[in-house]
Structures are given as C-alpha cells and as structure tokens.
C-alpha cells in the first residue's frame, strides 16, 4: 500500500521561464531527474509532500492490520499477515529514504506526522472490526494502491520510481492473500459470507475515495501530470480499479454496495465500463481533516511507539559513540 491522490499539493514555483522550459524539456524527453539535479522548487516541494504522505501511509497502514495479527484464524494466515505488515514497514522505509534525497530529514518527517501536520491515506482512519476486514483490505485497499502505484514506477523522479518498482513487486502477494481470505469466507458458512459482505459494504466507498477527489476538483493534477510525477488522473485510476474489482466481487458472490452501479457502453472510450454512483466527498474531507473514527488512535499509537523507542535510539547512539572512541584509543 498505499498512496492516495495527493492532498494539498503546492506546485507554485519561482524560477525563470528559461529554467522551467529547460527542465520541462528534460521531462518531456523522459529523462529521469536525480536528487542533485537542478529542479524547480515546486517540483521538489510536490515530491517531498507526496513521497512523505505515501511513506506515512505505509507506516500508519501497519496499524489496522497489526490489530489482527494475534487473532488470525490459523498459523498460515498469521504468517502471511505478519509478512504483509512487515512489507508495509519496509515500503515506508524505502519511501522515507527516497524523500530524504530531496533534503528533508527522517526525524523532521516523523515529527510532522506526530504533530498531525502531515497527511496519510484516509483509508487507515477506518477501524478493522472483523477478520473479513483483513481480507477486504488486502483485496480492495492493496488493490487500489497497486492501481495508483504501477504508474508511479515511471515517475520522473528517479529515487521515487526505483522505490516504487520494489514496492510493486511486493504488493501482488498482499492483494492475493486478501482475496484468498475473502474466497474462504464466501465458501464458508452463511455467517462467514455475511461477515465478508459486511466488510465489503464498509470498505467499498473508502477504497474509491483513496484515488482522491474528482479531476475537476483536483487543482494540482495538471502540474503533476506535466512534470510526470503523475501519469493518470484520479478519475482514470478509479475507473480502472472499479472495472477490475466489480467482476471479482461477482466471483465471490458479493454485492458492491452501490445501487446506482451499472454497465455503461460509453465508458472507457466506447469499450464500456462500470459507472458508479455519487461518492460522499463530505465524508472524505471529514476523515482527511481528522474526524475519522480512528484518526486519534492512529497518531497516538505512532506517538507511543516513537516515545517508547526513544531510550533505544539514545542507547544505540551512545553505544556507537563509545565504540568509536574506544577504537581511537586502542590505535
């Protein structure tokens, strides 16, 4: 997981027309931009923000799933869930190090998250109430993240693109283990199938919101597309996700909770696609602004982990310093 359409980008930039045109020419020629290259301030700022939000999403995303590690129904499920949560931690770390190449510090990014100044994907502010939620998250949330992330492998900024290639290789198992959980539940008892349907009912709309606001309301999309940070618009990615997911729900024998959902021949340039009903953007913005069920818990958990780990970080540094001076003395 888990990038979401970037929230609150600021692509303003103050360079000369000549500088911007030369930079744009490099982008248009599909050249990758590397950390020490000259770049517009707006490009740098947009990337710091996007990679930072993405990294925080991976780290906070460990919490709702970590919630079920001790209660996984079998050893097989527990091993898979542990491996998945560990991957998400790794994704966060790849991404933090990509952001650091742009001159921000890890500690600075962590402080912003803990102070509630940095955003992360709003999907993680929903609670994981039943085991079926773990299946649904793998299937839908990782599925949505994959849609978002595959084009990011071709992002114009080298370190971000390289991190995304590693991440995308690892995501496919996440989605498959989730769908396998759903299949097992749907082939199980009536109560198990009902649990699967209930989880789909709760996660469907938040998953669609992961792609961010509609293109018409997404002011920064155009600049990000021109700089090839982004390759597809929010609505294009959301449509791809819906078209891929609706048949998967049918296979499970589950119903997507959208009474307006229908096949529309005209979509996707005449190839047809599933047209969805209206998305409740008020809910999206409420959750983004901190009023989701779990916003406070998530930040509190991160803060506790950071504070409780302080003595370990201090001790490790003290140990390293002592060993370094010991070596010098011995020479």
């Amino acid at each position: 997981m888990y990038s979401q359409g970037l929230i609150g980008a600021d692509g303003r930039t103050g360079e000369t027309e000549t500088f911007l045109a030369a930079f744009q020419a490099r982008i248009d020629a599909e050249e990758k931009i590397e950390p020490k290259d000259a770049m517009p301030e707006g490009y740098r700022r947009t990337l710091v923000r996007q990679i930072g939000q993405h990294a925080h999403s991976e780290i906070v995303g460990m919490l709702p799933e970590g919630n079920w590690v001790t209660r996984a129904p079998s050893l097989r499920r527990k091993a898979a869930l542990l491996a998945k949560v560990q991957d998400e931690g790794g994704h966060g770390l790849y991404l933090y190090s990509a952001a650091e190449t742009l001159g921000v510090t890890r500690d600075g990014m962590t402080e912003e998250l803990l102070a509630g100044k940095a955003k992360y994907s709003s999907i993680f502010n929903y609670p994981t109430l039943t085991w079926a939620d773990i299946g649904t998250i793998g299937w839908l949330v990782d599925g949505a993240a994959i849609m978002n992330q595959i084009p990011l492998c071709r992002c114009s900024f080298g370190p971000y693109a390289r991190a995304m290639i590693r991440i995308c290789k690892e995501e496919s198992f996440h989605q498959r283990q989730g769908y396998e959980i759903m299949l097992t539940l749907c082939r199980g008892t009536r109560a198990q199938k009902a649990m699967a349907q209930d989880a789909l009912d709760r996660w469907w709309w938040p998953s669609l919101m992961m792609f961010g606001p509609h293109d018409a309301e997404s002011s920064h999309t155009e600049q990000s597309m021109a700089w090839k940070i982004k390759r597809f618009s929010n609505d294009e990615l959301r449509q791809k996700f819906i078209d891929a997911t609706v048949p998967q729900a049918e296979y499970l024998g589950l119903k997507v909770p959208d009474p307006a959902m229908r096949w529309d021949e005209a979509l996707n340039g005449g190839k047809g696609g599933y047209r969805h009903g209206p998305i409740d953007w008020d809910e999206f913005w409420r959750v983004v602004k901190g009023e989701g069920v779990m916003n406070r818990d998530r930040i509190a958990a991160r803060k506790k982990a950071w504070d409780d780990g302080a003595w370990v970080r201090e001790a490790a540094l003290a140990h390293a310093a002592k060993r370094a001076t010991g070596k010098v003395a011995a020479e």
Partner: protein
Amino acid sequence: MAETPLWEVFIRPRNGLAHKHVGSLHAADAVMALQAARDVYTRRGEGNSVWVVPSVAITASDPDHTDEMFEPTGDKIYRHPTFYEIPEDVGHM
C-alpha cells in the same frame, strides 16, 4: 538528540555480479546497519552479500559540472574499435 546516521546499502544478487546500490537506511552503527539492511532490502532472497557505507563517506561528482566532467570523452572516437578500418579479408578481429 542527534539524528541516527544515514547509510547507503549495496546488494550483490548472486556470485558473479557486482554489488548494486539499492537504497539507504538509518542506523546507529555498522552492525545495526547490516542487520537493518538485511530486514529492509532482502526479504525475498534479493542477494547473498550486503555492503553498508556511511552516506557521509561518499564523494559525488557535481551534476552542475556534468558537461565539463564527462565532455572530454565525447570526441575521442578513436577509443572505440569501430574507428579502425581492417579489410574484411583479414577476418574477425
């Protein structure tokens, strides 16, 4: 408190290949950097050897001077085998 130092991580996928840069991480010392590199960058058999190097130890060429740095090689086409004309009768050389 001081920030935990940054390390660059290099992995050799298998014998016969060179170590390749894969990313970076924070660790207090070399031993912990190696362990963290194992956990972060080799969860699926990505390699059989890891190097960690303190990021501050790396001296890099300046991208603003890329042209001056690498331009001298541009016009030395006589460094390439195709510059030399050998009759076909001589055979492969």
